[in-house]
């Protein structure tokens, strides 16, 4: 009998998948492909690389489903896997990439109160460069905060940092980003 999973939470889906309904995992992938793809774009410019890593993320998540605590948020858990896979891949290939969508620089502009009068393409490139120059410890929480709209609590679970530390890193990251953009 087919199960109607539309109203299932992610955590309920995981319980079903564990109990031998492995085909329901496609629903998990449908829910998270776009989001994770969007997140991983901050790490990879190449679509092929992104697809490879995304596939690895879903495979790893499936394999370790019994390691997920259903009392916690599935979203934070799978984002953590995506984050770790991205970092591992970058370290292996010794790359330092940061790639923003055309309109994402506008989010940065608004959040940092820059109000720069630059051509949008130029601004996008400047912000991309500036984000790339930031240390990883500031860049990662900023990406999750600015572009994935994650709360401090969620960022704490994804990056395995105390909540207060997340707040401090975001505050300092914003300040440093503003400085880099000012003096560029």
């Amino acid at each position, binding site marked *: 009998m087919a199960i109607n999973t539309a109203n299932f939470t992610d955590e309920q889906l995981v319980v079903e998948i564990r109990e031998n309904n*492995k085909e329901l*995992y496609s629903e998990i992938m449908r829910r998270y*492909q*776009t989001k994770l793809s969007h997140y991983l774009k901050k790490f990879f410019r190449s679509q092929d690389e992104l697809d490879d890593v995304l596939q690895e993320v879903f*495979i790893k998540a*499936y*394999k370790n489903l019994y390691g997920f605590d259903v009392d916690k948020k599935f979203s934070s858990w799978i984002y953590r896997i995506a984050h770790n896979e991205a970092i591992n891949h970058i370290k292996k290939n010794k790359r330092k990439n940061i790639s923003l969508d055309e309109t994402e620089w506008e989010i940065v502009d608004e959040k940092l109160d820059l109000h720069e009068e630059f051509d949008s393409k130029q601004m996008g490139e400047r912000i991309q460069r500036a984000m790339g120059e930031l240390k990883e410890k500031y860049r990662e929480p900023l990406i999750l905060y600015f572009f994935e709209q994650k709360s401090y609590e969620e960022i*704490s679970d994804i990056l395995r*940092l*105390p909540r207060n530390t997340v707040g401090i890193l975001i505050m300092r990251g914003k300040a440093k980003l503003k400085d880099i953009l000012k003096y560029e």
Partner: protein
Amino acid sequence: MNETQNKIENEVMNKISSGKVQLRSKYIFLAEKLGIGSAFTLTILLAVLCFNLALFYLRASDNMAYLSFGSQGFLTFLESFPYLLVVALIILVFCAGWLIKKSDLSYKKPFGYFAVGLICFVVIGGIILTYTTVAEKIEQETFESHIGGLFFKPFLMHGLEARRGGIVGRITEVGGDYLVVQTPRALEKIILTSDTDLPSQPLLEGAFVVAIGKRVDNIFMVTKLQLINPEEMQMIRRGVHRRFGKFQPRADMPNSCRLSPSSSKPNNGGCF
């Protein structure tokens, strides 16, 4: 983009359906959690025990006594320090900290809180254990060569070893310019010179003494010597008793030079 997403979805689901990708058993995760939990508990308990043994060592061996000689005894203090116990303690505390970091919940608070909590627990636990006889029992197991004590031998043995710059033991003979002293290892003759700083109380057979000086051709030349209080250096005392048994005064010594086995006070006058 939809085509790509479908491609990824299909590839992953194919691997799952064909069995190429499988769920890791829930028992593996359970074993991991239990393993980390057990390892952490064992590490913490060993750290507490290590700290307790270090306190016991400092209290019951000759180590701290050399500090009472001031700067002259400092090198011998360093020589007799329980380095292995302290290093083991540090390693265990670091291991416990690492295991805390591996746990799922430790990231919620700054690691410093856990570090302070860990150290406080080890210190308080070690101090509480000093009110028990755990350390003495371990000493007994170690030096009576029981199997249970073999693990602790390298840590406690250092407390009874010979020192280059110090000596401690029970006087068994008082000579004109020498003492014969029973140490936990052997009988040793120590030489007193005109420059030797002696205590004001008389030196009597059966009394325990600690001295600093230097070894010249295997003979210990004493610079400074002190009598030990009856409650001090219990590990040394027990070491001497194990080696030589109860104190037996020599038949040919005058009464004034004898000390009864149960007392550290002189009978009358002094011999040295």
